[in-house]
């Protein structure tokens, strides 16, 4: 099969390709774990936190698309529900943990209820039907968020304050003089605390997902992906399993949405709900490798770096071709999504298993 039933093959010797994937993922994980000390400028912290959050988001999407074969376009909707839930509460009640817990909790519950509704309503029909329904639901949510501007701040979104523990002025540890303690020349202030809040939440959620796919339930999901009729015939309730995993993915997406809202101290359609995020997630999961979970780590990092460097490269190319008609327009840095789209199509054609999947197949006994 294309999206690869790799993880279930019991082999004594771990194939070399798989070892390589794990090594890469471990290296990325270590980089992220010590990011505040390795990359000291402010922009790097933003990028590292964004990578952490997207790894969880993409991995939870992989539970659907890669493991169960469900194509949903409503993933940003759940992400946005969590983010808006926490954000609205933080704005209304001021910065406090109760606001995050209650507001974020409400957002997560709303995501769960919506996921149950959508799942029971349309998961029993064809995959394609489900894709359409989720797309429609997600865009209605986007329109609602921009129309109910009294609550959501409309198109512009709104800013608010995070708990004091996360503000840059907060001293995490104090030295003898009452100044903020420095470790390897990095001030241990609230910014570091905020980063580790993001990193640890992401790590916990990511490990949880690894546990889920390794459980008997994960195996049933793969069985449903490979042959729905057969899974049903063996006696597994396909609709129940599909709805369950859809709900789990929705809850994880909403939870990481809460984390995103706390980290960013800003929530708006562009960062929490927009269709661009959905496209990013799709690209990342396909580039990384569907049905691997760890592929999410590679996909997110590659995409984030590509977004960064592709723009630079295109700027150079656009200047070089300035005299030719239309070509500079196509190479304009704003059009980077065009080339990413082309790359995406080629990937789906030639490497449907993605980077992680292709690597993992290398050197295996099959």
């Amino acid at each position, binding site marked *: 099969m294309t999206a690869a039933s790799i993880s279930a093959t019991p082999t004594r010797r771990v194939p070399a390709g798989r070892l390589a994937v794990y090594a890469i993922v471990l290296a990325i994980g270590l980089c992220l774990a010590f990011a505040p000390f390795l990359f000291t400028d402010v922009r790097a912290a933003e990028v590292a936190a964004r990578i952490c959050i997207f790894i969880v988001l993409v991995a939870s999407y992989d539970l659907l698309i890669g493991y169960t074969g469900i*194509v949903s376009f409503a993933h940003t909707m759940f992400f946005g529900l969590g983010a808006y839930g926490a954000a609205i509460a933080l704005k209304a009640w001021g910065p406090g943990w109760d606001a995050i817990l209650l507001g974020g909790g409400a957002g997560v519950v709303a995501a769960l209820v919506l996921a149950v509704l959508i799942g029971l309503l349309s998961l029993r029909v064809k995959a394609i039907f489900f894709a*359409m329904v989720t797309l*429609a639901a997600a*865009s209605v949510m986007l329109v609602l968020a921009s129309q109910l501007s009294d609550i959501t701040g409309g198109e512009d979104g709104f800013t608010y304050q995070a708990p004091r523990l996360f503000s840059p002025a907060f001293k995490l540890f104090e030295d003898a003089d009452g100044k903020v303690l420095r470790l390897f020349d990095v001030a241990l202030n609230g910014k570091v605390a905020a980063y580790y809040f993001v990193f640890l939440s992401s790590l916990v959620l990511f490990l949880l997902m690894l546990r889920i796919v390794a459980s008997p339930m994960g195996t049933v999901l793969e069985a449903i992906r490979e042959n729905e009729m057969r899974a049903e015939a063996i006696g597994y309730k396909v609709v129940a399993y599909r709805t369950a995993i859809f709900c789990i993915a929705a809850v994880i997406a909403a939870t990481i949405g809460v984390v995103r809202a706390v980290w960013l101290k800003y929530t708006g359609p562009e960062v929490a709900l927009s269709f661009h995020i959905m496209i990013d997630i799709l690209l990342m999961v396909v580039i990384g490798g569907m049905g691997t979970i760890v592929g999410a780590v590679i996909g997110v990092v590659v995409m984030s770096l590509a977004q960064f460097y592709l723009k630079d490269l295109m700027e150079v190319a656009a200047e070089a071709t300035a005299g030719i008609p239309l070509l500079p327009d196509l190479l304009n840095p704003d059009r980077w999504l065009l080339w990413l*789209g082309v790359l*995406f*199509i080629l990937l789906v054609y030639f490497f449907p298993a993605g980077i992680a999947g292709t690597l993992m197949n290398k050197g295996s006994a099959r």
Partner: protein
Amino acid sequence: MNALLDRVGGVYALPVILAILAFAAIGSTSTWVTLTAAGLAMGMMIFLMASGLSLIFGLMDVLNFGHSAFVSFGAFIAASVLAALGAWLAADSVLLNIAALMAAIAAATAFGALAGWGFERVIVKPVYKDHLRQILITMGALIVAEQLLLAIWGGTPIAVARPAFLTGSIIIGDVAIEAYRIFALLLGLVVYVGMYLALNRTRIGLLIRAGVENREMVESLGFRIDRLFIGVFMAGSALAAMGGAMWAGYQSLITPALGQELMIIVFIVVIIGGLGSIQGSLLGAILVGLMTNYVAFLFPKLALASNMLLMMAVLLWRPYGLKPAVKG
């Protein structure tokens, strides 16, 4: 309840019921007639876009997420042609006006057919029978098409010139109906009748309907199903582009985001109508068109959400849509 509904015309009675309910809620006759005309016109334009998508799915089992790209390209090509033929449009002669409008629609439609051919060959053909990759690839194609649109026409809204004879309204009593809406309604009806006749009275139509019913059978009887596929895909894309061209004239100001906005409505229509059937698409399109206009008048903030609720209600009642040609 089902028996009662069947006696008054089955699911086809739904738009009528909706219109009657709306009449009760609105109260004023002239407003109601204006809104109904607007809803029907909008429904007809959406029908043009949705029917192609539905038919392609029914015959080929391919859901083209890039369908809305044809709509946007149709709209922008029509706008460009109309802008180039500005002199004809402004002229006093109705003949020249019609010629310019027809040229614009024909250009959009021709482009739709050609692009549809290329799209089918390059994008869709390698992934027949693989739904997951189909969705991904057509989605990728949509991204590329939207970016091309931005690269060619830029991100700013473009004003669309409307031919002189279609501006203004026709006034009957105290009811005013925009002329362009009547034109859209008529064109939609012509296309519907044309499609109906082509599907039900011609040999090719017979083969297409047989293909929707059972693809393997048609193939094993020795007919070239791949040629049918290309033909239907081109026709569907051309219809989408035509719908886009009509929409451009209706909106009179178009942005590159138009395709995305319409795609949602088109999807809702196809889901409500049931995949694979022309009648279903027409029914769904008219329902959505009427619903949008009535709700936009009664509760302005709920316009888009109302379509969503309509879809939910229909899915609860009939999980495969109102008039599906293919099930499961």
